[in-house]
């Protein structure tokens, strides 16, 4: 009888707190529809790994090491960066780069909106995080889950769990985080600026050559980004080539869903109470918010600066869509534009900046790694 109840004595209050955190993640996923495909498995996983002597994670029981399935999945899918890369094939197959190809200048907004990554690196270092952790925290500003996982894991950060939670949570919170920053940095007149959409068509050859050329360019300038960019662009090539419709559909739906499912559960292996409940976790969540704020500000301020030098004015709000969170950021800008003027449709420009942000965030991850890992 003792054997049945003895595990109660192993339960700690920290583990109960982690159950509550898991419950909150599940609640946010179901009730608030916040990145449910990831937050729900992560929430359940947080409960799973915080049951005393959980058989889901590796434990040493009576001096014998018992391997847990989540650690097996972690070693096989995250420690070697496989899951985030495979997920990128699916994401690449989902993205339509046409709004960007018709107006390549929008790529500049994607670049400017990566400012939050580097600003957060400075902030995290000032708060005393070692460079590998500061850079891993900073990459939350990529607003791109797989890139965050890839970089944090590449640098062997001790804070993979909180970093991934912050990355996906703030992505889901973009509609709440961005509008006040955009309004603070722009005037009513600026938010009403109209942008003409030519809607010129792009040739099939351009759509096919684009992912190949971007891979080569990014690979030459930032070789450490080539796996990320390459898998993203491979997914897009499958989509655009016109002869792999079935594979494209599989990548967009089945592959992306399966990997997301595995990723969510596996990430939870890093959410054990002993390592997760710390002051650093709170600091990481705060720094993640800082990263998103500076990303948004970087894009908007770049738009304002651009207007000083160009005849054809751009709506600086487009800059906020330069963060990678797709399609939330472009929807936010579109809605803010409509709120100021019901006939001002900014969606196509914002979508162009948003997909540019997808590419730029991956490049930013590669550039960051190239600069600090020598």
């Amino acid at each position, binding site marked *: 009888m003792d054997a049945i109840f003895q595990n109660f004595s192993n339960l700690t209050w920290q583990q109960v707190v982690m159950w509550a955190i898991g419950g909150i993640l599940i609640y946010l996923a179901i009730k608030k529809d916040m990145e449910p495909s990831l937050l729900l498995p992560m929430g359940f996983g947080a409960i799973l790994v915080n049951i005393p002597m959980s058989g889901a994670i590796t434990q040493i029981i009576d001096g014998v090491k018992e391997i847990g399935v989540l650690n097996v999945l972690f070693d096989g899918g995250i420690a070697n960066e496989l899951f985030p890369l495979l997920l990128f094939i699916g994401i690449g197959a989902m993205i339509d780069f046409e709004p*960007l*190809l018709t107006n*390549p*200048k929008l*790529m*500049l907004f*994607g*670049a400017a909106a*990566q*400012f939050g*990554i*580097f*600003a957060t*690196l*400075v902030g995290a*270092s*000032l708060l*005393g*995080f*070692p*460079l*590998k952790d*500061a850079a891993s925290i900073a990459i939350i500003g990529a607003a791109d889950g797989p890139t965050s996982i890839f970089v944090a894991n590449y*640098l062997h950060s001790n804070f993979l769990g909180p970093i991934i939670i912050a990355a996906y949570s703030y992505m889901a919170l973009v509609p709440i985080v961005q509008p006040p920053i955009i309004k603070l940095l722009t005037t009513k007149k600026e938010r009403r600026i109209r942008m003409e959409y030519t809607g*010129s*068509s*792009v*040739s099939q*050859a*351009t759509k096919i*050559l*684009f992912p190949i*050329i*971007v891979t080569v*360019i*990014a690979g030459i*300038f*930032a070789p450490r980004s080539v796996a990320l960019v390459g898998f993203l662009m491979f997914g897009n090539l499958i989509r655009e080539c016109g002869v792999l419709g079935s594979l494209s559909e599989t990548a967009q739906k089945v592959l992306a869903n399966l990997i997301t499912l595995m990723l969510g559960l596996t990430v939870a292996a890093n959410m054990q109470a002993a390592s997760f409940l710390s002051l650093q976790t709170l600091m990481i969540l705060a720094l993640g918010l800082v990263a998103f704020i500076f990303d948004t500000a970087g894009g908007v301020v770049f738009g304002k600066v651009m207007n000083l030098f160009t005849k054809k004015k751009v709506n600086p709000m487009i800059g906020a869509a330069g963060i990678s969170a797709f399609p939330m950021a472009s929807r936010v800008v579109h809605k803010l534009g409509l709120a100021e003027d019901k006939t001002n449709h900014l969606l196509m420009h914002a979508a162009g900046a948003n997909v540019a942000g997808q*590419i*730029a965030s991956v*490049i*930013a991850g590669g*550039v*960051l790694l*190239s*600069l*600090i*890992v*020598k």
Partner: protein
Amino acid sequence: MNLEAVAPLSDTMGILGLGMLGIFIVTAAIIITITLLNLLASPSKKRKRS
């Protein structure tokens, strides 16, 4: 760089400057490429040729 140590402000500011410069350089290269692709393979140009 020592990844295990806290980087001084001068180092992280340098990474900030170089990082943003690097992203803009790659971005500029991509913009030029897209512009060239659009010029060389635009559907309207093909129509004119035919």
